[in-house]
């Protein structure tokens, strides 16, 4: 994991190396200062028969001042390089991940989920960035400060230094034990805490249900019980942590007292100067305070570990779709053939999503696809432009296996209007040109006319220059779908796939779009997936999907005669159970 991430330091290697170096320099200069203070007392104040030696004091003071300046410069350099390296590292991580995501196949994206990817690109990077800076600036500084101070005490007086060493060892053991205990409890607390928040979220989302069933008091009572449980666990966890401060205090205090006792003996027997005793006391904070810092850094790093792991997952994920060695870039025509195709999203799942599909579609045909949810309609068409790879068999476009094409060329020729479609912030024109960067305004207008989008676009004050907000919240569902259709048409593909892309468009407009497609996109092979039978009825041929298999394939009349499912759906939708709404779920 660390190796994966550290590759992304790249051009910031120098800054990454310099940061801890300057931090260590800062600490060394800083730690030397008290020695001179000791000399000031020893030789400056007390020296020369109690009259004092002011020039000596000033000389030593001057050296100390220089040391402060040096420490200051090192500190500032460390600060500057720390910022450069951590921000740069974060930048490279984000870039690395984003580029990797662009190469992801649909199944890679599905694996991580959209929100998972967003969290990794935002929160996780920030966590790792903070931890990285912490490591560079503190993880070296604190232990070095501790060790260097310890060495200094050994130089001054080994007997007293031993006391520090024992204190350091004892304190680290105590802190480690406390941390371990606390970590165990806190993991449990956070799990429960998440559960509690889920309950709250459920209530916020389902408040109408709660109120309709008059369950406010019931829910409040449930929450009270849950809050009580959390209280108990939190108290347990916190009770472990609060030992930290007193343990720390007792260690420092005992150390000071021991040094006072032994130090006094040494001073009295003239084996140690008072000034040196003062220096030893001064180092106590450096040694034990930094130990506390080390334990704190340790916690920080542990916390960021999960984030680092999640980022590494993205960085080391290989796209499972790859371009072939010598890709074919020319797609002859819009014919599509499925040869004994089986497919499943997970390699090891027992029941394939699609099994043994055999279909042959001529270029320019209009094919309707109908079937219940989960019958694998979308899965079927997603194989045509190689959004996923088949497990068995092959899919042929223009007579060639899709795996032999260059992926970009294939997708340029096979346009798809996805079920969960998205427009981006920017003007309508910007969005349309996603389909074709060089499209002229006339071409855009023509596509919009085919998609029955021109009229409503012109009704906006800014027309084609209307700005769409993030998530295109300022247009209705039906309008959004029509813009997506126009965008896909602009690509001038050989094959165009509509994956339930007129569900929010009213039936009359839906019919108009289909009529326009018939005349304007004559040569394109068209696949229309729909819930409404009226949307596919007039297609050249219709595929009836059921449980991942082709249940029927033929014209409307043929299917009506010999396909049970088709007949059932037809009757339910045109008979008593017909959809009544002008536009279901759409124009909200």
């Amino acid at each position: 994991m660390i190796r994966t991430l550290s590759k992304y330091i790249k051009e910031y290697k120098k800054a990454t190396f310099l940061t801890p170096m300057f931090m260590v320099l800062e600490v060394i200069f800083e730690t030397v200062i008290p020695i001179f203070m000791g000399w000031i007392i020893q030789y400056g104040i007390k020296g020369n028969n109690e009259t004092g030696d002011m020039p000596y004091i000033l000389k030593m003071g001057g050296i100390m001042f220089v040391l402060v300046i040096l420490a200051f410069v090192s500190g500032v350099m460390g600060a500057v390089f720390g910022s450069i390296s951590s921000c740069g590292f974060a930048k490279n991580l984000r870039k690395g991940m984003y580029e990797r995501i662009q190469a992801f196949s649909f199944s890679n994206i599905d694996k991580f989920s959209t929100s998972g990817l967003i969290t990794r690109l935002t929160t996780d990077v920030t966590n790792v960035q903070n931890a990285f800076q912490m490591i560079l600036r503190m993880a070296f500084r604190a232990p070095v400060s501790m060790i260097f101070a310890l060495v200094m005490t050994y130089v001054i007086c080994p007997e007293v230094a031993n006391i520090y060493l024992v204190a350091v060892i004892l304190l680290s053991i105590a802190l480690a034990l406390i941390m371990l205990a606390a970590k165990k409890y806190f993991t449990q607390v956070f799990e429960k805490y998440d559960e509690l928040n889920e309950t709250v979220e459920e209530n916020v989302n389902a408040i109408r249900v709660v109120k309709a069933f008059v369950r406010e008091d019931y829910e409040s009572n449930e929450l009270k019980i849950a809050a009580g449980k959390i209280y108990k666990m939190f108290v347990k966890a916190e009770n472990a942590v609060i030992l930290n401060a007193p343990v720390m205090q007792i260690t420092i205090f005992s150390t000071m007292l021991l040094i006072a006792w032994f130090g006094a003996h040494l001073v009295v027997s003239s084996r140690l100067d008072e000034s040196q005793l003062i220096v030893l006391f001064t180092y106590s904070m450096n040694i034990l305070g930094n130990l506390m810092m080390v334990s704190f850094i340790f916690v920080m790093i542990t916390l960021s570990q999960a984030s680092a792991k999640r980022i590494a997952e993205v960085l080391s994920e290989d796209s499972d779709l790859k371009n072939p060695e010598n890709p074919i870039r020319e797609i002859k025509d819009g014919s599509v053939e499925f040869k004994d195709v089986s497919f499943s999203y997970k390699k090891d799942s027992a029941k394939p999503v699609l099994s043994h599909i055999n279909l042959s579609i001529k270029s320019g045909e209009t094919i309707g696809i109908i079937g219940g949810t989960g019958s694998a309609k979308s899965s079927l068409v997603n194989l045509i432009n190689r959004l996923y790879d088949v497990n068995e068999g092959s899919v042929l476009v223009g007579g060639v296996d899709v795996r032999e094409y260059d992926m970009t060329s294939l997708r340029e020729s096979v346009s798809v209007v996805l079920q969960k479609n998205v427009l981006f912030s920017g003007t309508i024109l910007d969005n349309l040109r996603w389909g074709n960067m060089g499209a002229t305004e006339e071409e855009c207008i023509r596509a919009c006319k085919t998609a029955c989008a021109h009229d409503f676009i012109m009704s906006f004050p800014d027309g084609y220059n209307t700005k769409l907000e993030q998530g295109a919240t300022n247009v209705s569902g039906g309008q959004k779908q029509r813009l997506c259709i126009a965008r896909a048409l602009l690509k001038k593909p050989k094959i165009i796939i509509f994956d339930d892309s007129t569900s929010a468009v009213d039936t009359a407009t839906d019919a108009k779009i289909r009529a326009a497609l018939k005349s304007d996109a004559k040569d394109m092979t068209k696949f229309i997936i729909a819930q409404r039978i009226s949307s596919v009825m007039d297609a050249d041929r219709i595929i009836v999907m059921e449980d991942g298999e082709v249940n029927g394939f033929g014209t409307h009349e043929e299917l009506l005669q010999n396909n049970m499912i088709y007949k059932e759906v037809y009757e339910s939708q045109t008979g008593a159970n017909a959809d009544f709404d002008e536009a279901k779920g759409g124009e909200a």
Partner: protein
Amino acid sequence: MGKNDKPIQMGRHGAMGPKPKLDNPLKIFGRLIKYSYLRYPVPFAIVLICIFYSAFAQVKGMMFLQVLIDDYITPLKGVSDPDYMPLLGAIGKVGLLYLSCALATFTLNKIMVYITQGTMRHLRVELFNHMEKLPIKYFDTHSHGDIMSIYTNDVDTTRQMISQAIIQFISSLLTITLTFISLIKLSPVLTLVTVCIIAFMLFMTKTIAGKSAGHFVAQQRNLGALNGFIEERTKGQKVVKVFCHEDESIAEFTKLNEELCESATKAGKLSNIIGPVNGQLGNLSFVLVSIVGGFVAIKGIGGFTIGAMASYLTLNKSVNMPIMQISQQFNTIIMALAGADRIFKLLDEPVEVDDGYVTLVNAKRENGELVESEERTGLWAWKHYHKADDTTTYVELKGNVVLDDVDFGYTEEKMVLHNIDIFAKPGQKIAFVGSTGAGKTTITNLINRFYDIQDGKIRYDGINVNKIKKADLRRSLGMVLQDTHLFTGTVMENIRYGKLDATDEEVYAAAKLANAHSFIERLPQGYNTMLKGDGASLSQGQRQLLAIARAAIADPPVLILDEATSSIDTRTEKLVQEGMDKLMKGRTTFVIAHRLSTVKNSDCIMVLENGSIVERGTHDELIEQKGRYYQLYTGNKAI
């Protein structure tokens, strides 16, 4: 040009946002103190004493160095047979002081755990209780993400504030004060040096912070832009792929990423510098004190001894830390106050008012008269107390609903329903049809009083619904909404939600009525299958079947149904349809209809348009009229 300027300016404005502008921070602070610490007055008093004592003991402990050197070491020097007993005594005394200090710290922390967690428990429960009582309007007008953020972020920052920031702030303040008293006692001259350095330190911090503010704003803005881009593009990643827009996306991303890196580095540099600046000023203070102290000691001004110098140096070093921290703690408190403010705002949000006094009671017939019954009789009555003549009447619950000239708007300015008249006799089925946004859902929101009407009257069994207690009114109304919500728990528990004391047999019966029984049986653990995340493991149709079962078990006389649109598979759809039909049998039903069969079977169809009923009647009558309904009906069939 002007158009392009605007979003940038808005961005700048937005980035300034995080610095919270509170109307009255002191008031919020006071309220928070009252809400947390003052809930536990005696323990909190002990905490304050402990803070004071441990600060005192720590400062006092550092003064020990002076005593040690001046009183116990220097006099013994050169003595041939030194007597260490007084020293041992002194060390013992200081040891006791230290021990009591550690004890005080421990006690303080221990009590704070209980105060903090007790407050948190109280806060969570009260927040939730209060939220449950808020009117639907609150949930419709506040984003669910914002509400959740109160429970997650705001409660958490408040916890940190009361458990740490405030306590540390008090402690720092005390330590600084006590240290300064000691410093002055040791040497007023040196204290002047210390004060000068500290003043300089604060000045530097302020200057650097002021300088970096601009970069921080830029960083926030760039971060917002990048995160916005990431969110939008990642959500549309599949679209990016099908349009082969990967390279363009990377180019745009890289530009935003570089901009963020640049401003973040600048901001980071400056804020990082504050550390070494203050740290080295602290060391500078140490150096100056050494020099000036040396001078003072040589001259022997004010009896300044080596021991005093040792203590002074230690104290001088230890005062830097709290001074550097205190401004940070202050900032934390201010930031957390914004969270506390949001919490209190939620707690101050007026709860759903309920002036109703008519209640729903079990009833039985005695001599043809309706009287109240203690037991469940299956017969329900509205208990109506008339204040005017001090009598109580009982009206049988039948399910007669009348809307009389009702006007309604979600806001005062904009009415969405106009002059709505509806008469539903017990057992009748009333269907609402019309395009989305015509006001169908709004009407159903009024019957159960999720919203209150502006004008007109709604009567239930002849009683104005305003007089009926909301809980009893809603108990008499069943609801099946289009977007089904299930709760974490077993299937059994989810169905039982409609009637908490239902037996297992009743649950099975309800599931059978709703056509849900057979699919539940096929689940891995049948009725004990755990549902999570709003029933994510079930299909939309299955979730709907459970919602129908949940309504069926409550057995209400009046039903409000929002039919699902047909984007579910045909098989389950049929089951749902049948389940709904069975549920509607014998009940007054208001149904937002999407299916022709439902509409055709209705006793009365209301055609809504722009908040008004434009046509009403049975299917045949409306077809006859050749109006809007006819259009909707044939428009569909023509294709």
